[in-house]
């Protein structure tokens, strides 16, 4: 009954074209963002470190891939590679120019990933679907090889790993061993909120329509005067930018260093692709849903069930988590093959009319 748009009359096209044309949606989003900023100090370091931070990082990467796969219809398996480019670019930049703020480098490192994405996006003019996925797989393997074999990238460390230095913003350490999880969380949250806003602007405007036209019917898109190569490369660039920033954030604000060979592997590419598919192709909200389902569900099963009194121990918990996560993924895909975002949209549609059927 509360979710009703009755009485909200739009008198200008601006109001009708708003991202959230229904007032209740605006209030809801505002509440969620407010909660995301206000509540965490009351949560423990464990929740922030293992639940919230990874969720935000995965959401950002899934959003990036969704711009490419969901909105432009180009399947990519190079996500982790592009994330790695972001992480290494950020590492090189901050060690070469330590006086520049780390936040600047995190946001700029995405452009390096974008450039690499454009190069590996070139085959997309000629090939589509699974074949393009295989071509982007080449990007994944090539980039992984670079991360291991080019010691310049990790500053010739003996460990071969990114060693995250301490960096501060206005005297407050935000990166490195001395940064608290809460600080890192707030930095990530701000980046994710900002980039989500930009992604939403892109997909609701001219560029978004261009991409969706390419996705739905490329022949007709050409006829509307869309130059396919340009549109696809722009999608690769923007998508890789988001993935690159996600990679830099992952390495600097979540992992706090580590060997990228293990981090930015093909497994990560697959995980993010599954998040996009389960969350909903062609929906920014879907990226968050997918990340929540694939990341939070195993944690809940692992720690939530014992906390509720279901006795689970060690290996059993691990196995059961895998089984139940798998089962839930299948369940959701059967209920709604278009992903959780579509399920959500249907629910909202029903709610607008509830309790009447039509």
């Amino acid at each position, binding site marked *: 009954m509360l979710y009703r748009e009755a009485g909200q009359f739009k008198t200008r096209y601006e109001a009708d074209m708003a991202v959230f044309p229904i007032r209740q949606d605006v209030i809801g989003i505002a509440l969620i963002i407010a909660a995301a900023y206000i509540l965490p100090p009351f949560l423990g370091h464990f929740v922030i470190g293992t639940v919230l931070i990874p969720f935000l990082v995965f959401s950002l990467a899934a959003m990036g891939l969704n711009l490419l796969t969901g909105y432009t219809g180009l399947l990519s398996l190079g996500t982790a590679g592009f994330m790695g480019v972001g992480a290494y670019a950020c590492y090189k930049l901050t060690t070469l120019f330590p006086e520049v703020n780390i936040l600047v480098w995190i946001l700029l490192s995405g452009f390096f990933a974008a450039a690499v994405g454009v190069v590996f996006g070139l085959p997309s003019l000629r090939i589509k679907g699974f074949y393009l996925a295989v071509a982007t797989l080449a990007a994944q393997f090539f980039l992984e090889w670079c991360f291991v074999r080019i010691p310049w990238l990790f500053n010739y460390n003996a460990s071969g790993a990114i060693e995250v230095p301490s960096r501060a913003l206005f005297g407050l350490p935000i990166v490195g061993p001395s940064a608290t999880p809460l600080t890192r969380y707030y930095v990530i949250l701000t980046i994710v909120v900002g980039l989500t806003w930009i992604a939403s602007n892109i997909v609701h405007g001219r560029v978004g329509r261009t991409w969706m036209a390419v996705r739905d019917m490329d022949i007709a898109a050409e006829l*509307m005067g869309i130059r396919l190569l340009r549109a696809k490369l722009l999608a690769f660039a923007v998508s890789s930018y988001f993935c690159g920033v996600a990679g830099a954030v992952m390495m600097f604000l979540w992992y706090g260093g580590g060997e990228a060979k293990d981090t930015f592997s093909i497994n990560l590419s697959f995980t993010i692709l599954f998040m996009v598919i389960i969350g909903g192709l062609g929906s920014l909200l879907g990226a968050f849903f997918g990340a929540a389902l694939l990341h939070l569900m195993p944690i809940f099963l692992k720690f939530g069930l014992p906390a509720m009194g279901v006795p689970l121990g060690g290996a059993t918990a691990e196995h059961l988590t895998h089984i139940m996560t798998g089962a839930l993924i299948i369940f959701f895909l059967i209920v709604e093959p278009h992903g959780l975002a579509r399920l959500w949209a249907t629910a909202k549609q029903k709610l607008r009319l509830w309790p009447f059927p039509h």
Partner: protein
Amino acid sequence: MAASGERRIGDVVLKVENISLAFGGVRALNDVSFDIRAHEIRAIIGPNGAGKSSMLNVINGFYHPQQGRITFKDIARENFGPYDAASRGIARTFQNIALFKGMSTLDNIMTGRLLKMKVPFFWQLLRYGPAMREEVEHRRFVEGIIEFLEIQAIRKVPVGRLPYGLQKRVELGRALAMEPDLLLLDEPMAGMNVEEKEDMCRFILDINDEFGTTIALIEHDMSVVMDLSDRVVVLDYGRKIADGTPEEVRSNREVIDAYLGVRH
């Protein structure tokens, strides 16, 4: 334009000269020449497989003919792609609807404005200021088309859910949003019932009348063709067999043979 009550046929806008197109050994078009004059409705007819759709694909740059020349608005270009055709004012609809299925009616028609939207990418990121003003300006134009085609009620409906007849209408709207000088319609009335056909005929005549758009259409319904078109070109097995007013074409011996068959 409509005030005069009669449409003034202008000069030749599109000239097709000696076009030959082959796919491997199959000759789709064989030395076809004809012209289209400004503000006229020009029908292209012929039995199945006569090369009508191939002709449209050549005109808007999908196929590159092995021989021949196409002159559009006094500029001859032997090979030009779909982008060139679109940017110079050629729009079209498809025989099998080629709408963007995942997008709403409004967004589909808005794609017709893409070539006219120029605000740089930076403003698109913010969706504010110039970008928003441009969106609103084109939305206003698109709303005009939505009103013209009487599809206000389905503005926000994803086109995949619309019935066939309405999809055809949305596709026409998308082509109109490009403000084309030449509109190519590939079987705009295929698969429609009588009422839908009547509506579509009315829209085609209104477009021609109110906007002065030159129209080339492929159609199988002879009564429609004879009623709507100013001149008709008839293709059979990739060759042009007749060209003229509907009356001339109707009484042409070769046309009758092509349609009814002839004893060999």
